[in-house]
């Protein structure tokens, strides 16, 4: 709050220009009143991390999960919590440390839209009723404030939740209370069950009855009031936040909601497209794996190894790995080295980056087909000979 | 009602309600007809070119009240007179204030207004009484004239560009007030009159009714002989000399309590009313602190109701 004076304040000219331009249905950046800015969704390396760029606004979302005890009044439901971080690099008015009022408001609006509308299935997150449930935590980092943070952060949260995979766990033990969480490379992690996508659409109200969608930073400084409507493509209203500001007629509100529905459908399709392309890309990486039984492959590599007569060390490591690891990881043996020379060193530390391992072991499995193996081995052999020579 | 702090027993409550009811019925009927609350439309003849004054606003061509109060019409002007609001200053008002801050070449006073009032160093008489330019030394010695939390009496000189008040205290009767009590009442209880300084000889007490609702009741100080303290030690010695006698202190307390009771009841404060209340307390042999009790409160209400009823009867009789 002490930094409020550092928030950019519009000059009289700019305020005047923005308001007057709106009279003729023209916005400063050339959009129409109800157009969204360009939306770009990218994903990070890990499951459950997303980056959203809406015009100049840049938001990152990250999802993690852990096992906790459930709330007493809801013993068989998991929990979902939204945390926001308004980084000072986004806006000079943001302070480090305690979240300000707008940060808390944003967190609560997205929280209401996702949790209270039951977008994410909570009951499937229950492992042992009353004892262990998954607590999903969504962290949203604002990297650049170009206006309309709520919409962008909401999209980031949705994208992150859609690509998030939680580890599978089985309940066992003698009393049925023992929970074992499996490594992602042991069993495939599971996606969250998302029933519907609540999309936040923000409207900005100016005097003279002008309304725009997706206000930019400057429009936000000039506006008289704002309303965020979270709707989904099924025609449901999930949450609305109009915290004071200029008064509008209720007919205007209904009109805005109808516009929001149209926009929501559009954005939902964009998110789904981005998520689908990401998942297929990831799946493709995995698909290179051979469906045949693994031990065969291992013997093949052993044979090849002995033929080549090199890589004694690797063979030993292979043996070691055979014993200690589950099949999928072992395959990432020498063949793996060719494809990814750098991972030679990471043989020993294969368990640390499980995602990496999974990806890479998949790749090695792909190369494990006899044809490609020989091709793969040859250059290495040549290389080895060279090194021997040298 | 501000009588929450009083614990009235049943009879007292009944008496009080009867007195208040009588007071309300004595008020002219016109007052209730013109009362408006926020967002009420004020009936106005459209062709008249009405001037919209304080407390009104123009919405869709209608005159709408923005305050709760009574509508007053004066020729072409329509405005809403509200009661419970902060002080509304006028040029020439006598006010009593309290020093909050000492700023370069000025003192900032708190006067129950939306901003602090400013008393410039040049608007204040220097201790030695000479009329001269204020030098840097004077500026450094501002603390010897007024310090933080001093009570000062001054007059409104005008308004500054940002809306805060400009005060002046050039006359002898203005300046620091000592040896007395400062009371804060709602400003609407103090009406603007010709005289705000009252010297009650029989009690040797000064009574200053500030237009901003700050009331000063203190020992009488002879104007002109006001000793300007020139140094700390001298101040102590003069204080020791001018010790306020106990009788005067008692009178001050009685008057102050009378003001408190009247303001709690919501009666306009006039000198006559205050003195009358005080004399009633003396004649009924009430202890000074009993004046703030329930019984005196109810008695004062009854007395005032009776007085107004008498006045009305006299007026009606005279007609």
């Amino acid at each position, binding site marked *: 709050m002490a930094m409020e004076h550092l928030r950019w304040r519009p000059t009289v000219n700019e305020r005047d220009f923005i308001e007057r331009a709106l009279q003729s249905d023209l916005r400063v950046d050339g959009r129409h009143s109800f157009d969204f800015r360009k939306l770009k969704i990218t994903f990070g390396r890990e499951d459950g991390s997303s980056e959203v760029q809406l015009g100049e606004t840049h938001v990152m979302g990250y999802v993690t999960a852990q096992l906790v005890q459930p709330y007493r009044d809801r013993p068989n439901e998991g929990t979902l919590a939204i945390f926001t971080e308004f980084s000072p690099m986004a806006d000079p008015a943001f302070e480090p440390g305690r979240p300000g009022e707008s940060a808390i408001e944003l967190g609560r609006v997205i929280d209401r839209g996702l949790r209270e509308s039951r977008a994410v299935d909570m009951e499937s997150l229950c492992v042992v009723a009353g004892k262990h449930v998954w607590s999903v935590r969504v962290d949203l980092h604002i990297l650049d404030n170009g206006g309309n943070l709520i919409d962008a952060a909401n999209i980031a949260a949705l994208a992150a939740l859609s690509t998030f995979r939680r580890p599978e766990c089985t309940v066992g033990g003698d009393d049925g209370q023992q929970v074992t969480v499996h490594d992602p490379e042991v069993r495939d992690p599971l996606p969250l069950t998302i029933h519907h996508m609540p999309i936040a659409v923000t409207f900005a109200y100016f005097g003279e009855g002008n309304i725009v969608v997706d206000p930019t930073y400057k429009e936000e400084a000039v506006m008289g009031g704002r309303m965020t409507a979270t709707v*989904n493509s099924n025609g449901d*209203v999930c949450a609305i936040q109009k915290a004071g500001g200029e008064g509008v*007629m209720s007919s205007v509100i209904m009109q805005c909601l109808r516009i929001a529905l149209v926009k929501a459908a559009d954005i939902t399709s964009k998110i789904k497209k981005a998520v689908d392309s990401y998942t297929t890309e990831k799946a493709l990486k995995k698909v290179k794996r051979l469906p045949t039984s693994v031990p065969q492959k291992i013997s093949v590599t052993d044979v090849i190894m002995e033929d080549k007569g090199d890589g004694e060390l690797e063979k030993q490591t292979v043996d070691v790995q055979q014993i200690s690891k589950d099949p999928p990881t072992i395959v990432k043996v020498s063949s793996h080295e060719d494809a990814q020379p750098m991972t030679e060193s990471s043989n020993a530390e294969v368990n640390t980056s499980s995602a990496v391992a999974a990806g890479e072991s998949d790749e090695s499995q792909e190369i494990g087909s006899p044809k490609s193996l020989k091709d793969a081995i040859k250059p290495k052999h040549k290389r080895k000979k060279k090194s021997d020579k040298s | 009602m501000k009588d929450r702090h009083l614990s009235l027993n049943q009879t007292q409550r009944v008496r009080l309600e009867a007195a208040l009811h009588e007071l309300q019925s004595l008020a002219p009927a016109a007052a209730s007809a013109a009362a408006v609350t926020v967002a009420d439309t004020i009936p106005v003849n459209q062709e008249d070119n009405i001037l919209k004054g304080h407390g009104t606003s123009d919405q869709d061509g209608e005159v709408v009240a923005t305050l709760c109060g009574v509508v007053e019409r004066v020729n072409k002007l329509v405005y809403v007179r509200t009661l419970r609001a902060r002080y509304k200053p006028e040029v020439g008002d006598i006010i009593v204030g309290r020093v909050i801050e000492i700023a370069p070449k000025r003192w900032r006073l708190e006067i129950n207004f939306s901003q602090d009032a400013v008393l410039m160093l040049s608007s204040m008489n220097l201790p030695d009484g000479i009329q001269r330019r204020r030098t840097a030394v004077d500026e450094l010695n501002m603390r010897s004239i007024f310090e933080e939390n001093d009570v000062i009496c001054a007059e409104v000189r005008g308004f500054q560009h940002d809306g805060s008040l400009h005060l002046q205290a050039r006359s002898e009767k203005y300046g620091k007030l000592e040896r007395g009590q400062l009371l804060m009442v709602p400003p609407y209880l103090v009406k603007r009159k010709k005289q705000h300084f009252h010297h009650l000889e029989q009690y040797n007490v000064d009574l200053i009714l500030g237009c901003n609702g700050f009331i000063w009741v203190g020992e009488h100080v002879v104007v002109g002989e006001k000793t300007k303290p020139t140094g700390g030690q001298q101040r102590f010695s003069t204080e020791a000399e001018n010790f306020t006698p106990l009788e005067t202190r008692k009178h001050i307390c009685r008057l102050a309590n009378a003001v408190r009771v009247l303001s709690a009841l919501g009666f306009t404060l006039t000198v006559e009313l205050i003195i009358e209340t005080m004399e009633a307390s003396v004649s009924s042999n009430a202890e000074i602190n009993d004046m703030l009790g329930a019984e005196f409160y109810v008695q004062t209400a009854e007395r005032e109701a009776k007085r107004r009823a008498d006045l009305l009867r006299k007026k009606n009789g005279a007609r």
Partner: protein
Amino acid sequence: MEYVNPLTGFRVDGRRPNEMRQLKGEVGVVARADGSALFEMGNTRVIAAVYGPREVQNKGQQVNSNEALVRCEYRMAEFSTGDRRRKPKGDRRSTEISLVIRQTMEASILTHLMPRSQIDIYVQVLQADGGTRSACINAATLALADAGIPMRDIVTSCSAGYLCSTPLLDLNYLEDSAGGSDVTVGILAKMDKVTLLQMDAKLPMDTFENVMGLAIEGCKAIASYIQECMQINDLNLSKIAVPTMDITQPLKSLTCCGWMAFVHCIAVHRNFLGLLERPMEYVEGPVGLLLSPKSRRPQNSPSHFVGIW
């Protein structure tokens, strides 16, 4: 659990679906504050105190010097809910509700009339039984009117929900925590404009429209009740304060006075009662000539700009 009895149509506390809880408003409960009010909606009790306009305490917060700074603080007393609250003030919900109340009241207060000053609204929940947000806004409206702060319109607020396929007006805590939708609406009563709208949990669009319409009706009912409260309080004060006898006397006693004397009497007594304290410059005619102010008021003094606002 059936929140609406299918046979009788009564709710858990015996109300009908479109019936509001009992309202009670009282003004002037905090003696020290410029304006204060106590508002009850059923079992929800809220107290609001307004200080201002007064000098800005923290100059860093003053963003726009042409307008008053409005601050609001919402807190729930530790004893207001069934279990003792751990953090009554600093938690996220209280911060959000403080923000919401502040922006709602800012939409109505004419802040440009009080530049460079600060208005503080403190709201405290004494008993919480659902609808605290609405009760707080209603109490704040009453307190602001009590403090004599000019407002564009009365702001009232009410909540409504949807349970068992019925829109319900004014939810209590039990109905609120049932998991159904909760719509809180705040309107500017005379202008019929929606200024606050919050909603959670899913609802189809048409149902939402019905529920919002019901909440707006509730708000209007509360507005008429609040106006009554204001009228009663204000009237009492004005009747007791002014000693009204004296004004009429000289006007009636025209017996031997000439025209100038008559006018002089009016002038003196009107001055006496301070009726013309403000608009002296605008009075025309003979009375005005007598009453021209002693000193010219500076043209650019905002608090004396008698104009249209």
